[in-house]
């Protein structure tokens, strides 16, 4: 009897495959990052260079830009797999589908969410945010982008293969993502005002754990429906 791959091996295989695919096409990976940088540039151009204004809007801008660029890359989460038929294989595989969906989401976060977190201090510095807040911002962005990837994986699974997918995906995911935006941006603002930030970080962590426990199952159910 040939040995069945374990759960961890199945999960690892999906993550490895998606990372490999992403690194073969670095352009797709970099585009959301450039988008993030450009959206952050738009605000000072539109509002003006007065530094007290920039300091006030900085946390919000970073968060809105992160949210939008996370959305931008979500559309492709299952699209490539649908087009080349590997989505069928994933759905049919003996491994539990929620686990594989989680694997794909993890890979998506590694190539789209994590780079945003790493680049965000540059934007923060350009908005003259105090140095002490940058750590808080990176923590909240880490938790927030994980939640966004998880929420987005449900939306992407629901809309995969639909014609007007991108706009629809934003309509579905944005309202669900608003708590993350509220807590993320508020917490960074509080940090900038030297206020207590623990509550916001705890909330984001709780939301992240909740999404981690439910979203893979919802995404799996959605994939089964879409791939009927």
């Amino acid at each position, binding site marked *: 009897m040939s040995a069945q791959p374990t759960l961890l091996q199945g999960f690892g295989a999906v993550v490895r495959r998606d990372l490999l695919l992403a690194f073969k096409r670095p352009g797709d990976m970099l585009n959301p990052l450039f988008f993030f940088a450009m959206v952050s540039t738009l605000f000072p151009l539109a509002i003006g260079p007065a530094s007290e204004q920039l300091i006030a809007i900085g946390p919000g801008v970073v968060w809105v830009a992160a949210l939008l660029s996370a959305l931008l890359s979500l559309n492709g989460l299952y699209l490539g797999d649908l087009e080349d038929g590997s989505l069928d294989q994933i759905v049919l595989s003996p491994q539990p589908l929620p686990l594989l969906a989680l694997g794909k989401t993890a890979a998506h976060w590694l190539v789209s969410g994590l780079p945003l977190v790493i680049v965000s201090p540059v934007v923060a510095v350009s908005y003259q945010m105090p140095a002490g807040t940058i750590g808080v911002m990176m923590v909240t962005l880490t938790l927030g982008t994980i939640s966004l990837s998880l929420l987005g994986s*449900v939306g992407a699974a*629901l*809309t995969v293969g*639909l*014609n*007007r997918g991108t706009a*629809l995906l934003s*309509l*579905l995911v*944005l*309202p*669900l993502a*608003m*708590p993350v935006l*509220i*807590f993320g941006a*508020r917490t960074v603002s*509080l940090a900038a005002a030297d206020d207590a930030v623990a*509550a916001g970080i705890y*909330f984001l962590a709780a*939301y992240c754990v*909740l999404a981690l426990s*439910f979203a893979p199952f*919802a995404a799996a*159910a*959605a994939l089964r*429906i*879409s791939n*009927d």
Partner: protein
Amino acid sequence: MWTFFHKLASPPHVYRIAAAFVPWFAVIGVALIGYGTIAGLFFAPPDYQQGDAFRIIYVHVPAAYLSLLAYSIMAIAAGIGLIWRMKLAHAVAAATAPLGAWFTFLALATGSIWGRPMWGTWWEWGDPRLTSELIMLFLYIGYMALRSAIDDIGKADKASAVLALVGAINVPIIHFSVEWWSSLHQGPTLIREGGPAIEAAMLYPLLANIFGFTLLFGALVLMRVRTEVLQRERRSRWVRNMILGDPA
């Protein structure tokens, strides 16, 4: 008892039952709304602080309450449809969504009309209820957009049901987060009608309108469910027999 439930899975049965309920709901609902509106607009005393402006609650409160009720009904129906594969439950969810969206819009519109003289602004971001109601409207819009984007009705049912359930888990979180967010603003004092103490002459018309709106909503849902059933069953024998006047 159980036969009643099992019969609910049969489209022709529901089609008939719904028809029997619609006139009752509609007539009693309209009568209650008539009493509530006339008594509320003309006979209830003006509020000592807000004057006559408070009278918008006779539309606003029922609409806001129904926007939440409709979402719960939609999510529960969607869950039933997913779990027990009951197509009629999906029809109920599909029928409820546009009504829920409309009541949400009505609650927002009346709220902002009331806000203009009371807060001096059409829109107040500092009020958590306004903001979470707005996000509620977005949830409805997303649900309807997803449903209309999928051509296959069975697929549309199931996909939108997943979305409705994910949204239902999120509704309390959204509400809580918006409240937390706005409590940090040095916002204007949020006056709502005097708390639990409200005079009977003001209260009874309000209650009548709440029940009346609910019944009217029920009648509208049932009418829409009938249309949904007809549309979904248009190729079936009982619909053809009914239309052609042939006894089944």
